[in-house]
C-alpha cells in the first residue's frame, strides 16, 4: 500500500499559533468580571481537622466566596473510586473532609478581586488541627500495626476475597503460573535483587489551571487545560452532583500532561466559588502546589529474581512490587505487574505479586506508562546482570528469551502480532550498537520495555465546505501534535491535500464523547474515528453524485484524488460540496490494545571523582506499527528518553520525617535540561498492528519504559557497581564506589 500523505512530515495546523504566542492556554483565559481563586492547604501530612473558621476571610472587602469541604455535596461513591484510565475523582482530594492526609491537601478555597487578596484571605482562615502520626514508609504502612489512613478501606484482592480487617493496602495483584521453585532449581545462575524507586512528578511546564462561569440558570462553563474534556465534565458532574448536560467543558491548549492532567483538582473549586460569588472565577496553581497536591508517580520497592540455564534460557521469573499510591486508593502496580517481565513472559514459571499501598503523600496519577518504568528498571537490571554473569551479549540474551506472536503474556493470554524481536534486531543493527564503546569509566547499557496501549472511545466529525476544504472537529485532546496526524488521515482517505483539512478540538457540547488522551490511544482510536468519518463523508458524496447522475448509489465509486466516478463521468469533491455541505461522522470504540515494545541503548561516562554521569550517546528503537507523522513519532520517543533520564539520574520527591515535601520547585527537584540530554537517535520499527486500518500502534508510552534500566545498566558497566535505587545521583554513585572500593 502506498500512501500520499501518511508518512510525510507536514507542519502542524496549529503551529503558527504556537510559535507566535497566540495559542490560548488555560491561564490565558480572561473573562469580564473574573475573580481569582486561591486554595488554603494543609501544612501537615496527617491531622484531624478540629475546626475551620472562615468568618474573618469572608468579611474581607473584595472577597466574594469562601468554600470548605462542607460545601461539597454528599455523593455516594465507592471508597476506592473507579481505577485505571477511566478515572473518577474523590471528593476529599478536592477539599478535605474531617482529616487532612498529605502536605498540601486542600482545606478551603477563596475567590477575591485579585490573586493577592485571595491569598491574604486564605491566611485569615483559622484551622485547628489535631496532629496524627504520619505514615511515611511503604513497608511500615503495610504492617498490621500501622496507623490507618482510612478506617473503611479493605484490600481489593485481584481474583480473591476481601480481607476481614481494613488496612493501608489498597490492592493486591497476584499472578502465578508453573512451578517457580522448580524453575529456579533448574537454573544454573540466579540473580535476585531489591530495587527502590522515588516518587517523581510528570513535570509538565504549565501548572494546573481552571476557569469557571456559572449562570443563574445553573449552566456551567469550564475552561481548563485537561487531557480529557469529557473526563473533566464527568468528574465535576460526579463531585458536584450535577447532570453532565449542565456542564460544558471548553478545553484550552494544554502545556504538557503525561497523564497528570487526567484528574480534576481545581475545576470543581472554580465551579463552587463561581456559583457562590455569582462571577467567573479562575484558579491557577503555583509550582509548589503542582508538586505537593497533584498526582505524582509512585515510589516503589521492587524485588526481582531471574534464573537461567548456562545457555541463557530463562527458567523462572519472580517479582514482588509494592507501590505507594498516596493518601487515597489508586493503582499503578497493575501495569507494573503486567509490564515487568512482559518481554520474556513465555517463561513457564512465573510469579508476580503487586501491592498498592497508602501513605500520607499526594494520591498518584498516571505518568507516561504508569507503573511500568519502575518495574522494568528492576527487571532489566537483573536481566543485564544475568547476561554479564553468563558472558552473553545483552541483546542476544534478550533475543533468546523474547516473546513472539502466540507466546504467553504475563497474564496467560497469547501475544498478538508484536515487534519485540524486530526491535531487538534493529537495535543490534544500529551504527550505535555496531560501534564498540572505548575508554575508561565508560559503559553501554541496553534495556527493553513494554506498554500495552489503551483504546477507549473517540468521536470526530467533519464537514466539506463549498471550496472543498474540510473542517474536522475532534473530541480527544491534542497533547503534542495529534491534530496534524488526524488531518493527514482524513486527507489520505479523501485524497485531498493535507493543507485542505483544518482540524480543531471541539468542546463537550460540540462533538461526541471522547475519552481522555492517555494510554497512547489517540492516533490509534481517534485516527480510526477519522477514517470512519472520512468514509461516511465519501458515502454522502456518492449519494450526492448518484442524485446528480440519477443512478443507483452503488454504481458510484469514490476514488481518492479524483472524486466520484460513474462510467466515464467524474464529479469532484469540490463540485459535489458546492451543492451543499457534506458531513461525515465517526465514532470508534474497541480498537483493542496495540502492544508496543521499545529497546534503548545508552552510552555513559561516569566521572570517578564526582560521580557525575555524562550521556555520550543514546538510541531509542521502538515498534510503532505505522508512523503517520514520523517527526512527531520521533518526538514522542525523544521526549520519553528525556523523562527517563530525569527518572534515572535526577528526580525525586524529598520528604522530611513528618511527611512535609522539602523540594517543591524546579531548583531542588531537578528536571533534565538541554545540557543533560544528548542528541537522541531514533529507529522506528514498523510491525503493523493487524487490527488497525493503518497498522498504527500507540507510541507515547512504550518509549518511557526501558530508559532507566538502560542507564542503570550503562552505569553498572562503567563503574562496576550495580545501583539499585533511583535516582542514581552523583552522590549515590560516589557512595557506591566508596562502599565497594
Amino acid at each position, binding site marked *: 500500500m502506498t500512501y500520499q500523505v501518511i508518512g510525510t512530515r507536514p*507542519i502542524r495546523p496549529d503551529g503558527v499559533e504556537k*510559535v507566535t504566542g497566540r495559542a490560548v492556554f488555560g*491561564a490565558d483565559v480572561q473573562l469580564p468580571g473574573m475573580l481569582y481563586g486561591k486554595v488554603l492547604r494543609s501544612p501537615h501530612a496527617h491531622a484531624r481537622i478540629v475546626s475551620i473558621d472562615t468568618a474573618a476571610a469572608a468579611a474581607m472587602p473584595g472577597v466574594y466566596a469562601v468554600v470548605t469541604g462542607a460545601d461539597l455535596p454528599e455523593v455516594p461513591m465507592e471508597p476506592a473510586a473507579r481505577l485505571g484510565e477511566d478515572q473518577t475523582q474523590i471528593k476529599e482530594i478536592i477539599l478535605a473532609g474531617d482529616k487532612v492526609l498529605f502536605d498540601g491537601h486542600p482545606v478551603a478555597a477563596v475567590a477575591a478581586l485579585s490573586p493577592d487578596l485571595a491569598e491574604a484571605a486564605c491566611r485569615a482562615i483559622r484551622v485547628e488541627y489535631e496532629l496524627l502520626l504520619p505514615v511515611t514508609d511503604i513497608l511500615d504502612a503495610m504492617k498490621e500495626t500501622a496507623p490507618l489512613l482510612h478506617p473503611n478501606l479493605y484490600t481489593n484482592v485481584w481474583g480473591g476475597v476481601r480481607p476481614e480487617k481494613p488496612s493501608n493496602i489498597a490492592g493486591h495483584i497476584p499472578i502465578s503460573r508453573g512451578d517457580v521453585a522448580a524453575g529456579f532449581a533448574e537454573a544454573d545462575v540466579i540473580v535476585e535483587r531489591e530495587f527502590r524507586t522515588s516518587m517523581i512528578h510528570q513535570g*509538565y511546564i504549565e501548572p494546573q489551571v481552571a476557569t469557571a462561569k456559572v449562570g443563574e440558570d445553573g449552566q456551567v462553563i469550564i475552561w481548563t487545560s485537561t487531557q480529557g474534556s469529557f473526563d473533566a465534565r464527568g468528574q465535576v458532574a460526579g463531585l458536584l452532583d450535577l447532570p453532565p448536560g449542565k456542564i460544558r467543558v471548553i478545553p484550552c491548549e494544554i502545556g504538557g500532561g503525561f497523564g497528570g492532567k487526567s484528574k480534576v483538582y481545581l475545576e470543581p473549586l472554580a465551579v463552587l466559588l463561581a456559583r457562590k460569588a455569582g462571577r467567573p472565577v479562575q484558579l491557577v496553581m503555583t509550582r509548589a502546589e503542582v508538586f505537593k497536591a497533584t498526582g505524582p508517580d509512585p515510589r516503589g520497592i521492587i524485588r526481582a529474581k531471574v534464573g537461567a540455564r548456562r545457555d541463557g534460557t530463562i527458567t523462572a521469573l519472580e517479582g514482588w512490587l509494592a507501590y505507594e499510591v498516596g493518601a487515597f486508593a489508586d493503582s499503578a502496580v497493575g501495569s507494573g505487574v503486567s509490564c515487568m517481565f512482559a518481554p520474556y513472559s513465555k517463561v513457564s514459571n512465573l510469579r508476580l505479586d503487586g501491592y498498592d499501598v497508602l501513605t500520607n503523600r499526594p494520591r498518584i496519577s498516571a505518568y507516561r506508562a504508569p507503573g511500568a518504568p519502575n518495574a522494568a528498571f528492576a527487571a532489566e537490571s537483573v536481566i543485564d546482570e544475568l547476561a554479564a554473569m553468563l558472558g552473553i551479549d545483552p541483546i542476544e540474551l534478550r533475543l533468546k528469551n523474547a516473546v513472539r506472536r502466540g507466546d504467553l503474556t504475563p497474564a496467560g493470554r497469547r501475544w498478538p502480532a508484536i515487534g519485540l524481536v524486530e526491535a531487538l534486531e534493529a537495535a543490534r543493527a544500529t551504527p550505535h550498537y555496531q560501534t564498540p564503546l572505548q575508554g575508561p569509566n565508560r559503559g553501554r547499557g541496553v534495556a527493553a520495555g513494554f506498554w500495552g496501549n489503551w483504546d477507549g472511545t473517540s468521536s470526530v466529525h467533519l464537514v466539506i465546505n463549498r471550496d472543498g476544504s474540510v473542517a474536522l472537529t475532534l473530541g480527544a485532546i491534542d497533547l503534542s*501534535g495529534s491534530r496534524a496526524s488526524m488531518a493527514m488521515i482524513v486527507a489520505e482517505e479523501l485524497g485531498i491535500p493535507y493543507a485542505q483539512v483544518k482540524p480543531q478540538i471541539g468542546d463537550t457540547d460540540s462533538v461526541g464523547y471522547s475519552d481522555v488522551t492517555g494510554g497512547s490511544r489517540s492516533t490509534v482510536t481517534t485516527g480510526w474515528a477519522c477514517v470512519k468519518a472520512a468514509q461516511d463523508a465519501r458515502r454522502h458524496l456518492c449519494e450526492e453524485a448518484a442524485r446528480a447522475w440519477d443512478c443507483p448509489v452503488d454504481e458510484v465509486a469514490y476514488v481518492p484524488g479524483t472524486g466520484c466516478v460513474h462510467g466515464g463521468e467524474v464529479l469532484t469533491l469540490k463540485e459535489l460540496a458546492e451543492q451543499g455541505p457534506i458531513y461525515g461522522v465517526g465514532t470508534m470504540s474497541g480498537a483493542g490494545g496495540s502492544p508496543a515494545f521499545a529497546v534503548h541503548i545508552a552510552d555513559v561516562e561516569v566521572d570517578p571523582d564526582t560521580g557525575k554521569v555524562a550521556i555520550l550517546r543514546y538510541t531509542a528503537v521502538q515498534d510503532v506499527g505505522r508512523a503517520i507523522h514520523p517527526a512527531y513519532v520521533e518526538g514522542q520517543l*525523544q521526549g520519553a528518553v528525556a523523562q527517563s533520564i530525569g527518572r534515572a539520574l535526577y528526580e525525586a520527591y524529598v520528604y522530611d520525617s513528618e511527611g512535609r515535601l522539602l523540594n517543591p520547585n524546579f531548583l531542588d527537584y531537578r528536571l533534565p535540561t*538541554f545540557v543533560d540530554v544528548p542528541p537522541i537517535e531514533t529507529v522506528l520499527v514498523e510491525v503493523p498492528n493487524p487490527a488497525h486500518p493503518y497498522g498504527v500502534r500507540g507510541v507515547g508510552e512504550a518509549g518511557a519504559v526501558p530508559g532507566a534500566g538502560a542507564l542503570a545498566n550503562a552505569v553498572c558497566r562503567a563503574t562496576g557497581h550495580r545501583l539499585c535505587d533511583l535516582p542514581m545521583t552523583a552522590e549515590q554513585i560516589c557512595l557506591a564506589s566508596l562502599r565497594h572500593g
Partner: protein
Amino acid sequence: MLELITVTATINGDAMTFLCEPRQSLLEILRGELRLTGTKEGCSNGNCGACSVLLDGRVVNSCLVLAVEVDGRHVTTVEGLAREGKLSALQQAILEHAAVQCGFCTPGVLMTATALLRAHPDPTEAEIRQFLAGNLCRCTGYDKIARAVSDAAQRMKEATAL
C-alpha cells in the same frame, strides 16, 4: 491602597505606559495588564525559562524582573518576533523541525534562541545547548529544538550572504 507607579517602556516597538505596584513582576504586567499572554508562567522563580523575554536585547526571566525596572527600556516578547506578517527564521525552523509538542515552553525557547543568534550567529551544538539550558522543555527531549536553532542560524547566514 498602595501607591501605583507609572512606567513607560517600549514593548515590541510600541511606546506603552502602564501603572503597577512596586512589587509586581514584569511577567505579571505583561500577562495581566498588557494581555501579552504569549509569555508563559511555569514556576515564577526563575527556574523554567517559560517567561523569557528580551530586555534591551538581553534574555531575562520576566518573573524575576520588577515591572518598575523596565521604565525607559525596550522589551521584546514572543508577540514581537514575527514582522510584517512573516515569521522569523527561528519560528519557521521550529515549525519545520516539529520542535513543538505542547508549545508551552516554545515562546521562552524562541526568545532565548533569538538572543543567542543575535550574539552568536554561528553557534555550535554545544553552545546552543549551553545557552538554552535555562529553558526547560518536558515534551521534546530537546533534540529537535537544538536542530531547529542550528538550522535557523544556517538560514540566517545564507540570507545575509545573498
